């Protein structure tokens, strides 16, 4: 097992380097310039721009810039943002907790919806409940998050005036009011992300449970006279969830991607909105760092999925 892990981690290294090379080249080839605003403002002499470009090393060839970036990255130096001139790791650390909170909560919420609904639908396939759940699930994962986000804002914030739609990371309240305000402003982004994810998981849980529920060992359990609850919870769900766990782990990176849009809509100051504003400002070091973090997350969760699968399903062994 540990040998397998080590091998996987070693394979991950070249893929991370490959990803970084591709990212860097694409960014270097893309049009735009972090000091564009300087160029269009007649009050700023062109020397300032030339000076800044030289200072930040933007005039060197791509290969040299990449080597420099990679070198400092190895020493743990992520560089600094051209727009705000502070260190990129500080920027990301400032934003990460909010993203982790919102994404974490939305995943918990998605599971809380998907598990009971999926299992219940599977135990009563083609019943009214199953039909309704299915329809809603289809609607849920067909609607993109940017659409449901705006829909939620129009309904809950503007029409009903219940919830605020501008997320504020630092709320001036203390004590229980702080929690209350945080909850109020997080409901919509969490619900938007959670429902989208929950909808597809519901379908997945349902089919996984349906696969298992027809197997002989379930019939055996039933014939032993076990209560239906026990059969479902202890015998069926346990086995059905193995592929679901892998799926959840594999989909984590996609969730981070979806969070980018949601963060922008609700003004959640997470790394997603950091990435968007960095792209708008052509702030290469920040774009590099954030996309790199996403790439590492993808690799990590892939590995996690494989390991978890083997741990949950003893039939699989690693060599």
């Amino acid at each position, binding site marked *: 097992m540990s040998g397998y892990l080590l091998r996987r981690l070693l394979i991950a290294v070249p893929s991370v380097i490959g990803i970084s090379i591709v990212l860097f080249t694409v960014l270097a080839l893309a*049009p735009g310039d972090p000091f564009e605003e300087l160029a269009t*403002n*007649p009050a700023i002499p062109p020397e*300032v721009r030339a000076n800044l470009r030289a200072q930040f090393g933007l005039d060197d060839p791509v290969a040299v810039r990449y080597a420099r970036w990679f070198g400092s990255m190895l020493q743990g130096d992520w560089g600094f943002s051209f727009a705000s001139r502070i260190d990129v790791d500080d920027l990301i650390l400032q934003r990460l907790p909010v993203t982790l909170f919102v994404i974490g909560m939305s995943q918990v919420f998605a599971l809380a919806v998907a598990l009971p609904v999926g299992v219940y639908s599977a135990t009563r396939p083609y019943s009214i409940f199953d039909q309704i759940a299915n329809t809603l699930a289809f609607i849920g994962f067909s609607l993109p998050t940017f659409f449901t986000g705006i829909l939620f804002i129009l309904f809950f914030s503007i029409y009903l005036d219940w919830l605020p739609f501008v997320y504020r990371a630092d709320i001036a309240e203390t004590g229980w009011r702080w929690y209350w305000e945080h909850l109020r402003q997080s409901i919509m982004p969490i619900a938007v992300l959670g429902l989208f994810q929950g909808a597809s998981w519901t379908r997945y849980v349902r089919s996984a449970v349906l696969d298992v529920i027809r197997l002989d060992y379930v019939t055996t359990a039933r014939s032993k006279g076990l209560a239906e609850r026990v059969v479902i919870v202890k015998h069926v769900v346990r086995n059905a969830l193995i592929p679901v766990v892998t799926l959840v782990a594999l989909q984590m990176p996609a969730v981070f991607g979806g969070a980018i849009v949601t963060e*922008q809509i609700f*003004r959640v100051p997470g790394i997603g909105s950091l990435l968007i*504003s960095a792209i708008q400002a052509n702030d290469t070091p920040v774009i590099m760092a954030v996309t790199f973090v996403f790439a590492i997350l993808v690799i990590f969760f892939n590995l996690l999925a494989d390991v978890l699968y083997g741990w949950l399903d003893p039939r699989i062994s690693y060599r």
Partner: protein
Amino acid sequence: MNEQELRQLIAKVKAGTLSRRAFVRMMVGMGLTAPLAAQMLAYSGLAHAQPASAYKPTKRGGGGTLKCLWWQGATLLNPHFAVGTKDQEGSRIFYEPLAGWDADGNLVAMLAAEIPTQQNGGLARDGMSVIWKLKKGVQWHDGKPFTADDVVFNWEYATDPAVAAVSVGSYRDIKVEKLDSHTVKVIFQKPTPYWADAFVGVRGMLIPKHLFENFRGAKSREAPTNLKPVGTGPYKFVDFKPGDMVRGTINTAYHEPNKPHFDAIEMKGGGDAISAARAVLQTGEFDYAWNIQVEDEILLRLEESGKGRSEITPGANIEHIQLNNTDPWTEVDGERSSATTKHPLFSDPAVRRAMAMLVDRAAVQKHIYGRTGIATGNFLNNPPRFTSKNTRWEFNVEKANQLLDAAGWKRGADGIRVKDGRKLKLLYQTSINAPRQKNQAIVKQACQKAGIEVEVKAVTASVYFSSDVANPDTYTKFYCDMQMYTTTMPQADPGVFMNQFCSWEIAAKANKWQGRNITRWKSEEYDKAYRGAESELDPVKRAALFIRMNDLVIENQVVVPVVYRPRVSSVAKRLRAPLSGWDNDFWNLRDWYREG
């Protein structure tokens, strides 16, 4: 309008038969900026008493939190690095200049004890120097006194090439001397009519010497105060998350009595303009939203909820169509649109004149921009409540047809006009932006009726406005016949703005297309007028020169102005926020208050 007529108008103001404000508006209608108009009056001995502040509250604080929404958050808080308005505004909460510009173009003292004039000995008669008296008893937020040393330091800091400050343009041609602890002298290299640039307005915000002096030169990035500003402004720094939130709390030692009104201020960033307008106008979650570039139709609908209003602040940004003077279809020495060529169609003045008549500005205003884009015939602009006497515009397809007929452009079998084997076919480009595409359609339709075929092209904004030398689609390359965009005037004085028609500014391969003259128009008369304005000390003569420059550009159809675009902000119903088109939104934050 010539110098003589201007003098007569000023005499009328002196005699009291014409109000100051009406005079300023008239000048502005003529294509001058309000600050320049105010300067003309001051020079003629009509110095304005400091405009009375409309601030009502009688005690400091008690106004709660002022919540502002910027759909692009501030990313840094050092005014000398602040390129975009978002960063300037974030810095302006904490830092102040010696003086700011109000909506009518008057200088309003902030850290200066008084505005320099010739009468009080502040302005030298030869235009070679200005003496600023600083306000006494002003403290930085950390309790240290504000003195002339700080002012001198800001000049040194901004001009240090290793700092690469974006404010250098306002400081590099001056010398600053300390006369005593609260007086500084700004010395120019040559007679300078526009003296109120350094230490004034956007580029004038002052940073404290004692916190920045150890971080000069290449170390400037490391200064902790870059992120934790210590200024003299009405609010003290609390917290800053780049791109997301700037927070401040009341400065109880502020140098003006009873100010500020609010106990705290928040400037939240991110999102988009429409939802920012919603948060102020519809849900009332926020008090103020900046730069609301939203279709007027939507704004009007949001305002119906009655929670707020749109404030339209006249400035000098102008959406205009440029007609290429050079040939974009022939390559000379590796560049198209080379200044050595002539445009095959636009070299005929009749075609240019017809083109100017085919832009239906009234329709553009009515159907696209509403209150946020006002039809105009001038290039140097402001609200045309009094339209210029020199320039006029009309939309007239029939007349355009007659003009082209008379010039020998005959319609071919396909309805497109031809002369000497050249077809009237034009490529018209702009950036991708819904109102601009509608605008293109309106022009294209009118041209069709006049027998001109227009092909429209739209380029992604990030490419179009980039300075990428390798890309053929940038606006500075101008590889097409006509193009449209908004040019902004970042300074209160039209001096820098109007250099975009000077022959030495022509964008070309040699200057990597960084020259500001995109239309590649050459006019000896214009160049002469511009050179004259650079050293003309008499503001009245100088104004006459700028009017002449504007008229030259319009008479020769170098550009076809479409609409001028004022700044639009969303403001909560009870908030009183004095805004100005010549300075930042927060230029007078100390006077913001909420009505009881």
